[in-house]
């Protein structure tokens, strides 16, 4: 039967399952069937992405590499993308972005995240110390436009600093898994040799794989790596003489990315440079700082902050968010802080995003913030 013009119907079992799910949800109203299934299987959910930690490895003194098995709601990722990992610390759920480090192709649906513990990083410190096998964590769908192209570029230049190695590691592994053969150069900056993530694997790959060149720089241990110091034109010349023709992907601390942008702009190749920022949590925000912009994400409105509570600023911007007591007790105005830091006008406590609940009637922005409004 020629039914090629009709849209493909879902296979019968999937349709039955959906119908069954509707019945179960009606019987389990108002919570839905998820809330019952999770009594026996915490990592199952009909819509949320959750993952079970299946492997924990601490290969360097400051990092931890987690292998996760996401549930069926995980739709995969492209090399270079990140996910928002949610983990609970002392009863409070924290969410941070981490890039997948494994190849985006290949069998299985496992993903690998490498987390480097920063002195101020609550989540990274916690994962380094306390992540364990069998634990359930929350994930978001893979996000980000910093991705390896589908077609193989003639030359590939991957530059990373510190924990920024993870997305470019995924790109390199994906490139190898796809059996690409064009030359690739992997330039990595670490503080010390012992801190370098994936060092053994990269060295082995450079020794065996065709056209993979590894250049290591240890900024606190001059003479120990292949080069010394920070990214300069000389570094690029020394690692990849044809760098100006390469498709370049850079991820690392802000100074590294700034240097890369400047170098590529100088040769007019900005459009072949792809960057991914990763910023540390802004715990350094000063309570008195009122400069900054307030973005109401869902309404796509941005205003310059005037230092008053977010509710008042939102109303001044023409929005009409739900509100009640205006003194912080009724939680009618609770919204999600997507990014930035706010100060509680009553207690003076600072709260930083992303993805925490705040009462906007008593929250004053400190620097740039974005709220879901």
């Amino acid at each position: 039967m020629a039914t090629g013009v009709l849209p493909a119907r879902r296979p019968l079992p999937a349709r039955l399952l959906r119908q069954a799910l509707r019945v179960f949800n009606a019987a389990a109203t108002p919570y839905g069937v998820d809330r019952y299934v999770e009594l026996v299987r915490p990592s199952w959910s009909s819509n949320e992405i959750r993952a079970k930690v299946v492997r924990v490895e601490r290969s360097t003194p400051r990092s931890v590499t987690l292998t996760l098995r996401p549930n069926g709601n995980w739709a995969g990722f492209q090399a270079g993308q990140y996910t928002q990992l949610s983990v609970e610390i002392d009863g409070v759920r924290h969410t941070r972005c981490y890039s997948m480090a494994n190849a985006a192709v290949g069998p299985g649906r496992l993903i690998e995240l490498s987390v480097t513990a920063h002195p101020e990083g609550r989540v990274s410190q916690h994962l380094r110390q306390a992540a364990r096998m069998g634990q359930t964590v929350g994930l978001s769908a893979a996000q980000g436009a910093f991705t390896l192209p589908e077609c193989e570029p003639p030359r590939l230049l991957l530059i990373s600093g510190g924990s920024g190695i993870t997305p470019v590691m995924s790109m390199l592994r994906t490139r190898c898994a796809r059996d690409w053969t064009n030359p690739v150069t992997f330039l990595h900056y670490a503080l010390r040799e012992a801190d370098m993530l994936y060092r053994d694997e990269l060295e082995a790959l450079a020794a065996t794989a065709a056209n993979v060149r590894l250049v290591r720089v240890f900024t606190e241990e001059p003479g120990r790596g292949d080069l010394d110091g920070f990214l300069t034109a000389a570094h690029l010349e020394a690692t990849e003489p044809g760098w100006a023709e390469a498709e370049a992907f850079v991820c690392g601390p802000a100074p590294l990315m700034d240097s890369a942008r400047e170098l590529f702009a100088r040769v007019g190749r900005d459009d072949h440079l792809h960057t991914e920022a990763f910023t540390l949590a802004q715990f350094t925000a000063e309570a008195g700082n009122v400069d900054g912009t307030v973005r109401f994400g869902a309404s796509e409105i941005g205003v310059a902050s005037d230092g008053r509570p977010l509710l008042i600023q939102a109303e001044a911007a023409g929005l009409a968010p739900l509100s009640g007591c205006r003194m912080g007790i009724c939680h009618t105005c609770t919204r999600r802080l997507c990014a930035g830091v706010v100060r509680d006008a009553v207690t003076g406590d600072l709260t930083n995003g992303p993805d925490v609940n705040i009462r906007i009637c008593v929250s004053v922005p400190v620097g740039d913030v974005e709220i879901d409004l």
Partner: protein
Amino acid sequence: MTTVAEAHGLTPAKLDALAREFESLRGDIAAQLGGEDVRYIRRLIRVQRWSEVGGRASLFLGFLPPFWLAGVAALSLSKILDNMEIGHNVLHGQYDWTNDPALSSTDFEWDSSCPAKGWQHYHNYLHHTFTNITKKDRDLGYGVIRVSAETPWSPANLGNPLYALGLAVIFDHGIMLHDVDFGQVKEGKKTWAEAKLSLKNGLRKSGTLAFRDYIMWPAFTGPLFLSTLLADALANLIRNLWAFMIIFCGHFPRGTAEFTEEECEGESKGHWYFRQMLGSANIKGGRLFHIMCGNLSYQIEHHLFPDIPARRYGQIAPQVRDICERYGIPYNTGRLSRQFGSVVAKIFRFALPGRPKPVASAPPRTPETAASELMAA
């Protein structure tokens, strides 16, 4: 006319000092919140879910009386826990600090005919902000029962006890209709369109629950359709009577005060705390009793700190009581029989005309008299 605060010898400076004491108590307790509180509420949610599952399951054997009774008991427990310790408290934002979507006041939906969003507006905002201010706090008598001398008597009030009984039986739906509030439309404080939208949402929500309890699950049990339907109805009734009793003990027992709009105009934070304390009453009981009340048996502490996890109220009660004694503010507490008895007495008393003396005109209390009253209580 003397205000309630003046009658208690509280000057603005004293009220400010009172506010500082409560803010510092709040700070202490907020700093302690953590994993323990989350484990507690999740354990309660697990108990509630399992009792729901257990109750539904035993009704499949409902032709055996012990299973039918067990089913009713388990479903009543599930509904009471959901409405009180879990739903009421989560919807207050008591667990918003956890950032867990399952415990978030903006996302949570409860097993009550009143949609969470509408309930939050009139309860968290109107009732908790304007507690016991006559004409502003619509929980004072829920618009059908005369419980205040400020409400002029009319012959219709003779039905007070009947109305109260009726409200108790349909309490869950009563709360839903209370949110719709046609009374406010009559007064012009709400438009017809708003009320109609509330009613539509309320009917949709209560419809899905009724479909679940009175059609779906009875149908699942096949030949036991009627037996299951009856069990579900009884569980809903038990929940309604229990919730009515506990909630009416929160603000109507003997000794709770009312305030006028004038004396609360532009009030200080200290006056707000004072009003919360004087407008609320506690019930004494054991740990299990408090859990079954959703810790609303610590109504005073709840009204002081509505968004602090309720399991902490018992912990701070001695400190709150100490503050009350030092400031000469009565701390209204008693056994369930005393508190509910005085509520029933009040409902009967106000069915009749006359104006029993409001608390505002009571002689000023000194810390000493307040303390000795406490001893006698």
